[in-house]
């Protein structure tokens, strides 16, 4: 732990969904800080509120109560466009279903957030190549996304998440749709980029996937029930299958 300002500062976050007569409390007074360079797993069964938390961390949604800051920027009362800008510059998303643009090459997929940031084409290509090489897909730059295996698609998504060099890499069940052999490879990449100094928050319901992280926050019924340092994270073997 360092004494510098946290990348993520969540203070008394609540999220209440209101339908006609029913109030559902998805998040109930959740507070935590995440510092630069941490690899945090947020664990919890389905319905525990971890997805809601992920949406707030990802600036896809705003909390009903409490304050949420990412990289010193409060997101509680921002317009849709301002939130889009924060997602673009500060957060790299990795989704369970990869969410690559169909019939689009790997490099074009990785270039997408760079385009929304308004970078010139030459720089987009250069950066996209660099990150695709980093996830071991330097030889698949111009393959269409639907021609790649699940593991390869998720690597493209990781490269896309890293492309803007964000303050936070936010992964939502990153291995959920991948064969276990390839999942190991994905976790190896996470650990590698963690070692490069990136901050990673990973949402998962699988304890053995969470075990790769250096800190595990467990939530249940919208509350944090455990927040512990994992002193001996599982070391994932770099796989070669997916390449």
């Amino acid at each position, binding site marked *: 732990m360092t004494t510098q300002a946290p990348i993520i500062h969540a203070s008394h976050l609540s999220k209440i969904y209101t339908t006609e007569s029913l109030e559902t409390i998805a998040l109930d007074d959740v507070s935590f800080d995440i510092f630069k360079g941490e690899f945090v797993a947020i664990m919890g069964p389905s319905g525990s509120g971890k997805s809601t938390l992920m*949406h707030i961390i*990802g600036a*896809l*949604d705003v909390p009903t109560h409490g304050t949420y800051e990412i990289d010193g920027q409060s997101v509680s009362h921002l317009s*849709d*466009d301002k939130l*889009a*800008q924060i*997602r*673009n*510059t500060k957060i790299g*998303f990795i*989704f369970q279903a990869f*969410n690559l*643009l*169909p*019939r689009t090459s790997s490099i074009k997929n990785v270039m*997408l*957030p760079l*385009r*929304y*940031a*308004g970078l*010139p*084409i030459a720089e987009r290509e250069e950066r996209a190549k660099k990150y695709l090489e980093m996830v071991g897909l330097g030889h698949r730059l111009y393959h269409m996304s639907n021609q790649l295996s699940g593991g390869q698609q998720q690597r493209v998504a990781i490269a*896309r998440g890293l492309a*803007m060099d964000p303050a936070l890499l936010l992964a939502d069940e990153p291995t959920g749709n991948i064969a276990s052999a390839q999942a190991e490879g994905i976790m190896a990449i996470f650990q590698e980029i963690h070692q490069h100094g990136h901050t990673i928050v990973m949402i998962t319901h699988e304890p053995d996937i969470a075990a790769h992280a250096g800190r595990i926050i467990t939530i249940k019924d919208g509350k944090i029930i455990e927040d512990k340092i994992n002193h001996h994270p599982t070391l994932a073997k770099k796989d070669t299958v997916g390449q």
Partner: protein
Amino acid sequence: MEEIKELIIESFGTLAINKLRTGLAVLGIVIGIGSVIALVSLGQSTQQAIQNQIQSLGSNLLTVQPGSQNAGAVRGASGGGQTLTLADAQAIATSPMITTIKYVSPELTQRGQMTTGKTNTNIQIVGATEAYAIVHKVTIDTGVFISSLDDASMNKVVVLGPTVVTNLFPDSDPVGQTVRIGNTSLRVIGVTTAKGGTGFQNQDNLAYVPLSTAQNILFGQQYLGSIALEANTADVMTDAQNEVGYFLLDRHKISDVTKADFSIFSQQDLINTVSATTGTFTTLLSGIAGISLLVGGIGIMNIMLVTVTERTREIGLRKALGAKKKTIITQFLIESVILTFIGGVIGILLGVLLSYVYSLVTSSTFAVSVESILLAFAVSTVIGVIFGWYPANRAANLQPIEALRYE
């Protein structure tokens, strides 16, 4: 600009994925724009054809027609009166008060049956003087036109239009032969060249006889059907109209202009009337074509709504990666504008082709104005924006969480 260019390239890629759907969406616009272009140009070429026709009847031309005669409370039919006489025509020709008129052509026209004994045909029989050929730009193919001598001597001669020749003398030279109108035998002295074209009446299905012959022998009527006048120049048409008008009022001893027993109109009056009429029809037809364009636009909107629904997850992803509302709106607007623009281009080609074919079939002028093409481009683009606006906004307002979850 760079961003727009990228979006355009991307949109072409997206639209190429579902070619059938794209094609069908475009088709509505093709039909709409195509029919507008075709109908507008059809209207214009018809208008042009009619104007040319009227112009070919003679420029600087004024026509005096007998007006209605009011006998007590009974108002006679316009044009059917018996108020113009040869004396009127001669007075116009000789009076020193008339300075703007070059030629005077007194005329009397009736329909009649002409026969050679073997075949016969129903034609317009025009009682004409020498001036007729000049005023109405009638030229002679073979033989001669009616001379002043023919008129003075009440000669039983006739000049035939080419259609009459085709009908009555398909195989032989008519000049020198004899035709009959009623009981009167007439010697053919000439054939006019074809004036051709279509119009209200066939300018070639005519026969000309000396006016005196027509009045005294054929029709037995001393009145004139009309007096055609050729003004000195096109500039003095209005003066000439006034000059002749007041001259005739004076001759007919009428002091109140509104009670004139004749009317004078120029070719320009006729052209204006016809243009106004065809213009109205063109507008009406374009309006109907415009409705199909509207339907095409609704088709585009429908397709775009389907596209937005199908691509909900993609939109969610784009928003998650930082696409602003404006970016999403622009992306979908560009797609719909590309659809309508392609439709517009094909529609213009189709419309021009149709009007070209029409001009070939009817041997009329091929008239497609640059304005209507530019307008079609503009309209198709505007339709893309208007009908793409709602789907694009719907896409832009999707919440990223909901959109990413969408199955």
